[in-house]
């Protein structure tokens, strides 16, 4: 009875405290997030925000699913122009310049007042920060970030007389392995291709893997000059085209992203380049032993990063901005980042997340998860410029024209550069 009473009083007091706290400091935050890796990701985000709300009753977070990355930027920009922006959002890291140009977001530097906060800003992998900073200011905080890696079918390697534990390390090896792995039936029809680099929709992303390996950068840090017609870029495109046209180790024409994992599972290809976002999918569905490795090197190792960052929007109250900042700090903290990585396959964006017990357990069970992290050392910023949508469309069109054989690589890239120059001239 007494115990009961004490409990009721304590609970009542706590409730009273909580309610006064709510009235005094209540902050409403709206948070848009995209989903690019299936329904589970949305559930995980919702669970994380609920957990935060439970621990912080003075902050109310409304997590809003906003479709694909494309839909999310459209929805966000519409809301910004309509005068009701969200307080925070996860949007592609490459949309940073677009958001700056719209005057929609603010840098994190102004919100990081204490030394601890300032240190926090520098606690992420530098490869992820390349796409998150410009002009010395930090506009994005890495969250659902990825990078492409090489997956290979160990059984197919054994069958072809290759060492199943060793993926190709160089461009030449990739072709040599590919030739051994490509199988044809009696009529000369291919039953298993050597490799697969998907090229539908946004071919520029994996192509950027090739250009980085060829030691050339596609655009400058200021986002106002591209290098599409550099001879090394042309060489990289020639290599990609030759994989099908000359060496015949890859299916010719445009290769679909969406069906690539399936083709890998069904043995239509022995190797594939695709995002780490597929790790969990491949782990669950590949009916054979598979390996995950870094992309092969040419002049150097290299891969782009990809995926989404957190942004804080300008048109909110100071309290909202501060609360958004705190929430982002919490959700990117090691424990939460580890949960997120384990649920989705995205690369945890900071070194200390990999030191948490949960993450150590995950990596011990599934060592391939480490490949993407280790590759970050060689990774570069994903192509991002002012007028990003237009510039990447120009490059994508040029790549598709070369892949389908409508244009020679050099000509296609020269035209793309001229077109990009015309658009970016205003930003220099």
């Amino acid at each position, binding site marked *: 009875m007494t115990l009961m009473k004490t409990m009721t009083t304590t609970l009542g007091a706590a409730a009273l405290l909580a309610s006064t706290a709510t009235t005094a400091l209540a902050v409403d935050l*709206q948070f848009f997030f995209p*989903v*690019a*890796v*299936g*329904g589970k990701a*949305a559930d995980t985000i919702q669970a994380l925000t609920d957990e935060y709300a439970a621990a912080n009753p003075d902050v109310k977070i*409304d997590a*809003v*699913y*906003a*479709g*694909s990355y494309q*839909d999310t930027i*459209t*929805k966000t920009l*519409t*809301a910004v*122009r*309509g*005068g*009701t922006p969200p307080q925070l959002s996860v949007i592609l890291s490459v949309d940073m310049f677009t958001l700056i140009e719209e005057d929609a977001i603010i840098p994190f530097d102004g919100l990081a007042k204490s030394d601890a906060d300032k240190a926090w800003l520098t606690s992420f992998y530098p490869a992820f920060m390349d796409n998150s900073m410009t002009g010395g200011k930090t506009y994005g905080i890495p969250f659902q970030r*990825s990078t492409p890696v090489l997956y290979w079918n160990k059984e197919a390697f054994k069958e072809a007389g290759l060492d199943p534990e060793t993926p190709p390390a160089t461009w030449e090896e990739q072709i040599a392995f590919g030739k051994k792995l490509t199988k044809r039936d009696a009529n000369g029809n291919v039953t298993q291709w050597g490799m697969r680099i998907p090229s539908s*929709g946004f071919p520029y992303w994996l192509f950027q893997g090739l250009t980085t390996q060829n030691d050339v950068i596609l655009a400058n840090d200021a986002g106002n000059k591209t290098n599409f017609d550099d001879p090394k870029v042309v060489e990289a495109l020639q290599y990609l085209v030759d994989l099908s046209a000359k060496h015949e180790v890859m299916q010719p024409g445009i290769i679909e*992203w*969406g*069906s*690539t*994992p*399936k083709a890998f599972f*069904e043995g239509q290809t022995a190797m594939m380049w*695709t*995002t780490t*976002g*597929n790790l*969990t*999918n491949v782990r669950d*569905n590949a*009916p054979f032993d598979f390996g995950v490795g870094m992309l092969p090197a040419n002049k150097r190792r290299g891969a782009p990063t990809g995926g989404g960052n957190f942004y804080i929007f300008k048109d909110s109250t100071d309290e909202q901005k501060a609360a958004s900042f705190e929430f982002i700090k919490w959700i990117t903290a090691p424990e939460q980042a580890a949960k997120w990585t384990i649920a989705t*396959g995205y690369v945890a964006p900071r070194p200390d997340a990999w030191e948490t017990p949960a993450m150590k357990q995950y990596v011990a069970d599934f060592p391939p998860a480490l490949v993407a992290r280790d590759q970050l050392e060689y990774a570069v910023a994903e192509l991002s410029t002012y007028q990003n949508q237009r510039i990447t469309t120009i490059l994508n069109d040029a790549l598709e024209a070369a892949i389908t054989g409508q244009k020679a690589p050099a000509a296609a890239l020269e035209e793309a550069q001229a077109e990009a120059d015309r658009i970016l001239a205003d930003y220099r």
Partner: protein
Amino acid sequence: MSRTALDRWLNTTGAWALALLWFLPLIFAVWTAVHPGEFATRFAPLAPLTGENFVNAWNAAPFARYFLNSFLLVTFILIGQFVLCTLAAYAFARFTFPGSGVLFALVLLQLLVMPDILIVENYATMRMLGLIDTIAAIGLPYIASGFGIFLLRQTFKTVPKELDEAARVEGAGPLTVLWRVYIPLAKPTYLAYGLVSVSHHWNNFLWPLIVTNSVETRPVTVGLSVFASVDQGIDWSIINAATLMTSGPLLIAFMLFQRQFVQSFMRAGIR
């Protein structure tokens, strides 16, 4: 074989060929939806059947609520369109007033404007009205449909003036004439237009996604989009199960009312 027999034979074969072609994607969708994932691109007649894809799809998003929202949305839009377009079309068809030509030209102009261009403007308007994140906000921009006004005006114009005059002689006012004469005669047009409108708004995605934020207001298409996970590769079985599930109500409705629809389209065309 006589000429007419050959003709008929050609017609029938052509019709069957086209029908099969139209039906193939649907067959593929059904096939992948009722079989486990590994049979998605492989045909094996004895592949095990499963309802699991539907269960998984149903559980991936709050579909029950989404279905209710979609239903409310299309009903709201359809009723609004019928009322507004009928009144506007009646005015344009049977009344002469200053500026009617210019106004009608403006209505026709609406047919030329892609709704997607107006997203930002519409959003700002909805915000001014305080309607962001409501079902009304999804529907309102579509209620004054230029196409509906145009279609009904053309139909009303074909109604013989004599019927109108006879009703007036009997003492009917303009609204009674509309209700007793014009609307009954335009029934096939309403049916045809209603079908187009319902299927369009049932399938609309971008605008509802932008203007709504909560489960309580979002339609099925937003739920469906959760499955378009490009980064992870597409799981055809589950996406097809979800597609069949969300388009199911429309397909069933069309099959039930098929005869009426076809007849109404024919009558609407012949008049």
